[in-house]
């Protein structure tokens, strides 16, 4: 048995969503820090999937296929937003994190609204015009932040060594998240830090990966997140650089809501 015996029964219940209340919360806490149990959870979900696959019944009605294809035709794909994995250069320090994050979140929300708008605009020309205008807005807003010559100074108590730290700015109503890290230790090759949104209920949600730059700074900007996810806190683990859908290593940093 690769999992912890005392959690074995509850893990099976959790895998089929039959665990509730305090037991569920306790399981999620345990899962956040136990990779063996997370692996077993995936196995158990696979076992449960056999039940789903065993169902046989009538085929869906013919009209269902056309209904789906009609719906798909009405929903041209919105370009997927990808978690920002590139580290940012030295422009974070000038305005301070809060101002920077607020500007970025605002800019991102404009971008997001633009994406939503794209879906509904009837004309491609109108879309292009609108996009250009809003992109220009974003550039104008971000201009004071992105000057490459900006100087970054970390201020610490005398004789103190700078410690790794990070701040997550999360706007739940818009699904916007900006995470800024400083003094992060270098990583082994092919590894990256992965940010996790730890919800009040449910499993940790991947919230982007980042690699620190030579000065230990890293950022994640607006990773794809499920709408309305309520964050209890955020945490960081070290994962493969492509990121992992579930945490597979111990938490190296964790915070609480501010």
């Amino acid at each position, binding site marked *: 048995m690769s999992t912890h015996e005392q959690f074995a029964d509850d893990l099976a*219940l959790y895998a089929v969503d039959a665990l509730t209340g305090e037991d569920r919360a306790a399981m999620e806490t345990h899962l956040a820090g136990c990779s063996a149990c997370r692996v077993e959870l995936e196995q158990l979900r696979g076992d449960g*999937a056999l039940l789903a696959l*065993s*169902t046989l019944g009538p*085929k*869906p009605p013919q009209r*269902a296929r056309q209904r*789906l294809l009609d719906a798909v035709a009405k929903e041209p794909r919105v370009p997927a937003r990808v978690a920002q994995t590139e580290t940012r250069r030295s422009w974070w320090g000038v305005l301070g994190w809060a101002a920077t994050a607020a500007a970025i979140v605002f800019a991102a929300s404009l971008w997001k609204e633009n994406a939503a708008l794209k879906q509904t605009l009837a004309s491609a020309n109108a879309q292009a015009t609108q996009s250009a205008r809003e992109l220009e807005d974003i550039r104008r807003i971000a201009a004071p932040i992105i000057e490459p010559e900006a100087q970054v100074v970390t201020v610490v108590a005398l004789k103190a060594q700078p410690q790794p730290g990070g701040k997550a700015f999360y706007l739940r109503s818009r699904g916007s998240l900006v995470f800024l890290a400083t003094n992060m230790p270098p990583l082994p090759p092919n590894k990256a830090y992965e940010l996790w949104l730890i919800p009040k209920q449910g499993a940790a949600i991947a919230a982007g990966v980042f690699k620190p730059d030579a000065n230990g700074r890293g950022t994640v900007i607006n990773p794809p997140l499920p709408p309305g996810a309520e964050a209890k806190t955020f945490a960081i683990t070290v994962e493969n650089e492509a990121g992992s859908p579930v945490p597979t290593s111990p938490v190296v940093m964790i915070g609480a809501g501010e």
Partner: protein
Amino acid sequence: MVTALKAGDQSAVAQLYDRYSSVVYAVALRVLGDTGAAEDVLQEVFLQLWRNPAAFDAARGTLGSWLAVIARHRAIDFLRKRKPETDLEDVIVSVSPDLAREADRSRAAEKVRGVIGAMPPPQRSALEMAYFEGLSHSEIAGKTGEPLGTIKTRIRTGLMTLRKAFQT
């Protein structure tokens, strides 16, 4: 096929639908017992796949199993009249066979039904109540009048029995 879907190829939806709609619909119908509602779930599952194909991670499971599990989640959400509680990205299904071909799926389904049929009835019942009715362990205990610990063990043992059947 999933790559084509990610690239926005609408014909990929049709092909994936032709391959997997029967399993998605069967799961939804099993949970809901209503053809209209099952059709709505079928529609939603494939639309979700179209909108967010990246939610399916081919490295961690097979598409057929993933869709079946998503269908089960959505059908139970529908049954309990609640908003979707599980995010697609959270659904990771390892080890299960893909069963893209109807004949393979029929064989596997027959095997699973054989395994379930051989389980002691209270164990089978607890497993099915959790999986297809979306009942919690305490609801199952309340319904059957059995201790919580017994229900927990039955569900786990049931899943393990299924696993063993497909490991050999």
